[in-house]
């Protein structure tokens, strides 16, 4: 299982704070996971579309498109940060 976490505007748009998923066959990195979530359509496709400013973290560290995901990881999706 992989835990997915959504924060700030994305959490509100999706209406989901977190979920556990079985990593689909062939999804091995962050970019693939994002693309896979887009297949849910509607809000998911719109918010996670290529080119949209979405940041991702794997196990609490900022991730790149090619950051590898394995079973047991926590993957977070969120908008560019605005703290400080």
């Amino acid at each position, binding site marked *: 299982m992989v835990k997915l976490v959504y924060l700030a505007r994305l959490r509100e748009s999706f209406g989901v704070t977190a979920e556990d998923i079985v990593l689909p066959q062939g999804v091995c990195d962050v970019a693939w996971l994002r693309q896979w979530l887009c297949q849910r359509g509607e809000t998911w496709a719109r918010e996670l579309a290529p080119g949209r400013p979405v940041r991702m973290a794997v196990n*609490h560290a900022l991730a790149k498109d090619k950051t590898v995901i394995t079973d047991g990881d*926590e993957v*977070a999706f969120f908008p560019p940060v*605005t703290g400080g």
Partner: protein
Amino acid sequence: MAVRVQTEDFDIGAEILALKRGNPKIGAVASFIGLVRDMNEGDVVSEMTLEHYPGMSEKALEAIVTETKQRWDILDTLVIHRVGVLKPTDQIVLVVVSSAHRGDAFAACEFIMDYLKTRAPFWKKENTSAGSRWVEARESDDKAADKWQQDG
């Protein structure tokens, strides 16, 4: 090298006193406080809610402090970031850096803020005269953080 994420307010005098106490090697202390403004994008802001990613926010701040220590000759740092509901004039963030000389303290303090603005998982949602909205990230914040990569 403390990092704290908290709902409570902070007392900068007490925090600086605690940070520098008993260390005669400190010749400079630089600090920065970020505050809630009553106006953003032309609309009156009545309050804002600071959200963070528990578990990552502290780690991200610690990573920034670790990088700061590698770049400048500093003695100690303190970063406090508040979360929850805040109103105009409320304090949001505190950065304090101590060092032997002022150059390192000034630069390290600015670096921590620039990196915090682009790398630490905090988000602002503001209630304004035009309604409730998430604050958009600014390109100027990315540029401020990028300049340290060129310098470094």
